[in-house]
């Protein structure tokens, strides 16, 4: 989805080929995002069932002919472990041909996309909690980003940096991938957010420096179970 934008300049045939690879990689990432989403509920399930099983010695022994509750707990745990093993294999089968930095940005973007698709109410939480993403840019990428922000076209940018417009374009495409941006407006928005996030991050660190005293809080509202 996001990477397709970088291909506008390609001719038809090569473009189609790249688009196909992009579709595959997106399908891959969606798959990986689904596997990621499954991790949570499965982790919770395994923990609860493991706990039930460990406590199952104290279950009352029923007088029915079928399985005892202890056996039921044991079977439930075994089935959950089977599902988890399958999930691990599924997770292992996903390969993403991405560079590390891009993978961080895109992985995050896909997860965000998936959670948005999954539960609409996450949107607000996402907006609230956009913090230090710390997407690392090379010196050249920062310059390119600055020029894009100033409204430079690929040609103008290339001239300003004394590189070919093709090279400028490829820097731009890499920036889009790093931020998981769909278009230039999106890129500028995400980059600005990222920048703000970094500031936030630093000020949080500064605040922390001043409040080093250990204070016992009453605990979070959900603390006592």
């Amino acid at each position: 989805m996001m990477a397709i934008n970088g291909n506008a300049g390609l001719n038809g045939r090569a473009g189609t080929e790249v688009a196909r690879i992009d579709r595959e990689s997106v399908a891959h990432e969606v798959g990986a995002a689904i596997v990621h989403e499954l991790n949570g509920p499965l982790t919770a399930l395994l923990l609860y069932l493991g706990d039930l099983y460990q406590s199952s010695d104290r279950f009352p022994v029923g007088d029915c002919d079928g399985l005892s509750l202890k056996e039921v707990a044991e079977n439930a745990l075994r089935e959950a472990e089977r599902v988890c093993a399958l999930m691990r294999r599924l997770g292992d089968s996903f390969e993403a041909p991405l560079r590390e930095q891009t993978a961080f940005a895109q992985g995050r973007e896909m997860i965000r996309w998936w959670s948005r698709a999954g539960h609409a109410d996450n949107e607000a939480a996402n907006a609230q909690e956009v913090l230090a993403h710390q997407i690392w840019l090379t010196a050249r990428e920062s310059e390119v980003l600055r020029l894009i922000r100033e409204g430079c076209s690929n040609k103008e940018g290339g001239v300003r940096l004394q590189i070919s417009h093709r090279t400028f374009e490829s820097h731009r495409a890499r920036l889009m991938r790093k931020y998981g941006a769909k278009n230039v407006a999106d890129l500028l928005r995400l980059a600005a957010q990222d920048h703000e996030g970094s500031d936030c991050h630093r000020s949080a660190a500064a605040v922390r420096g001043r409040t080093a005293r250990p204070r016992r809080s009453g605990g979070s509202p959900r603390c006592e179970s």
Partner: protein
Amino acid sequence: MDASGQHARIETPDQVRPVLRVLVVDDDESVGAAIQAILSRRNCRTELASGAYAGIQALASSRFDVVLVDLFMTGMSGIDAIAHIRQQFEISIIAMSGFRLRSSLDPIDYFGTAMQRGASMCIRKPFSPRQLIEAIDLSVAASPLVGVALQ
């Protein structure tokens, strides 16, 4: 509260060790709740934070012996959070994740990166109660700071 009476009757060897204060940072609330339920019977006091920023705030306002951080959260990622926590706090950090992207061309090792940024150990989701307890015990035992933290 009234639940503590219920927990007290469950005898486990873990109960000999002092109360551990555990912070779970995970944007999936069901994971946090399950970990809390498991740990409540193992002499741990668990608090939950639904994101990196909330977790860092919790660490700044009270003392914990160990923090479990999910690597992939919306907002600040767990990797960034771990780097930040390591810089600011002396605490055992356990990275949790099941999400894994691999490539033969350019292998990405999220757990390796987490360790590099300061995680004490990593635990792969999904995990069993036993693996969870072991991870916590190991990371706490390995930390020279715990003696201080537990008084």
